[in-house]
């Protein structure tokens, strides 16, 4: 580890590795620090991605793909279901391999990566650079950087150290539990969602196939609606009722921010990306491809700022503005939809399922399901049409 770098990135998830690669490819020196012993582990994710989302950032390696998804099924509380076929191709990934490979690509671009390296704090130097306090193995040291990129995931404490409030409101977090279930009888090319207040209040249950009779089965419970029970208790109940014979090959827990992104994504010499910036689709909870999109934007802008010798908030705002104009704008619409759907009752879910009974999957569009869901809230219909255009 050297004493100074142009760009120092905190966190080796999809956001950090992508930002690192694009900054390095644009000609600046980059160091990436990851607290854990191994990039990509532990996996706290259902591993579902869309082909277009990933392909915008990186070519898809077949080794990442556990299952290819072409169909969706939504289950109502009484297990009526609605089948939807989509033109969009989805995958269930092996994130352990995927995150690892993203870091390998970053390293090949010249990024210096360290595991077991935790960022504990930082101070500003007189010339506007940042002295980053790093605990690496059993020693503390100071590394100087012109720009720090905070990609430290849901905890988002790096931005807090700079005085930005990143703590989530209870209604804006999904508390999640998941198992990799073995020996389950499922359609290997279909993703299933179960919607019910009883199984996962303010969230949903997912069944994402992973091949060989396995599936990631998990759920999210809204932080403000859990009624004193933990996500793991909800999941156990769901599994006992719906997959009583499943083996549980992996058990994981985690949280997903379901809100709009931080109002300030950059400060002088600091950029915030990925879960740390709350850049997750608040309706689906998908954050992998948006973390990477933000990483790409931030990496390119950071390198340009270094070349121009201007690391001010004003300069770095190119990234903030690009995000807010593009994905951020869509996600604000998704947030309004999520706030409505979060409060829907089992009776309403049942009504929607009933309305689509007997229809062929090719005739059911995701946009029509959501239009039906918001029919009593006309102001949201435009949102539903805009964000699901093409689905």
């Amino acid at each position, binding site marked *: 580890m050297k004493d100074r770098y142009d760009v120092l990135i905190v966190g080796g998830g999809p956001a950090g590795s992508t930002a690192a690669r694009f900054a390095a490819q644009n000609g600046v020196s980059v160091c990436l620090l990851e607290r854990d012993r191994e990039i990509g582990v532990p996996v706290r994710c259902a591993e579902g991605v869309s082909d277009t989302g990933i392909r915008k950032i990186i070519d898809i390696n077949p080794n990442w793909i556990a299952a290819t998804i072409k169909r969706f099924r939504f289950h109502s509380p009484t297990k009526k279901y609605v089948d939807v076929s989509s033109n969009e191709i989805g995958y269930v990934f092996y994130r352990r391999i995927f995150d690892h490979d993203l870091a390998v690509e970053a390293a090949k671009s010249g990024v210096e990566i360290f595991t077991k390296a935790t960022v504990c704090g930082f101070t500003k130097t007189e010339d506007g650079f940042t002295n980053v306090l790093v605990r690496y193995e059993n020693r503390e040291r100071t590394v100087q950087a012109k720009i720090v990129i905070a990609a430290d995931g849901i905890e988002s404490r790096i931005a807090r150290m700079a005085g930005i409030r990143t*703590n989530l409101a209870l209604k804006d*977090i999904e508390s999640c539990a998941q198992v990799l279930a073995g020996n389950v009888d499922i359609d290997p090319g279909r993703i299933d969602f179960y919607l019910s207040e009883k199984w996962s209040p303010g969230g949903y249950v997912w069944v994402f196939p992973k091949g060989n009779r396995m599936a990631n089965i998990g759920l999210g419970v809204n932080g403000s609606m*859990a009624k004193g029970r*933990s996500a793991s208790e909800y999941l156990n109940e769901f599994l006992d009722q719906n997959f009583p014979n499943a083996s549980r090959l992996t058990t994981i827990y985690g949280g997903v921010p379901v809100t709009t992104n931080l109002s300030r994504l950059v400060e002088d010499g600091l950029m915030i990306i990925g879960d740390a910036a709350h850049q997750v689709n608040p309706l689906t909870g998908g954050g992998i491809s948006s973390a990477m999109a933000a990483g790409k934007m931030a990496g390119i802008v950071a390198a340009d700022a270094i070349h121009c010798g201007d690391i001010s908030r004003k300069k770095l705002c190119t990234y903030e503005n690009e995000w807010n104009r593009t994905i951020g704008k869509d996600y604000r619409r998704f947030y309004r939809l999520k706030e409505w759907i979060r409060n829907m009752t089992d009776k309403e879910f049942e009504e929607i399922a009933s309305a689509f009974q007997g229809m062929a999957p090719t005739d059911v569009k995701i946009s029509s399901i959501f239009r039906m869901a918001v029919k009593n809230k006309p102001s949201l219909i435009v949102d539903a049409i805009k964000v699901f255009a093409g689905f």
Partner: protein
Amino acid sequence: MIRINREICDLCGVCVSVCPEDCLELTETYLRTDNNICIGCRFCIKVCPVGALSEVEESDERPL
């Protein structure tokens, strides 16, 4: 004050993300609380996916 059941805490960081006072800090192998600045809002307890957190009277706290 907040007590962590270390037998079941999975170090997932969800509690850290909601703490308004930033009194929770995660390392790779340990969750640390600073009970001097905890305001007792219980947000962390409500979002823990495994129910590893609880509120206890000061006198209940066992030494580690």
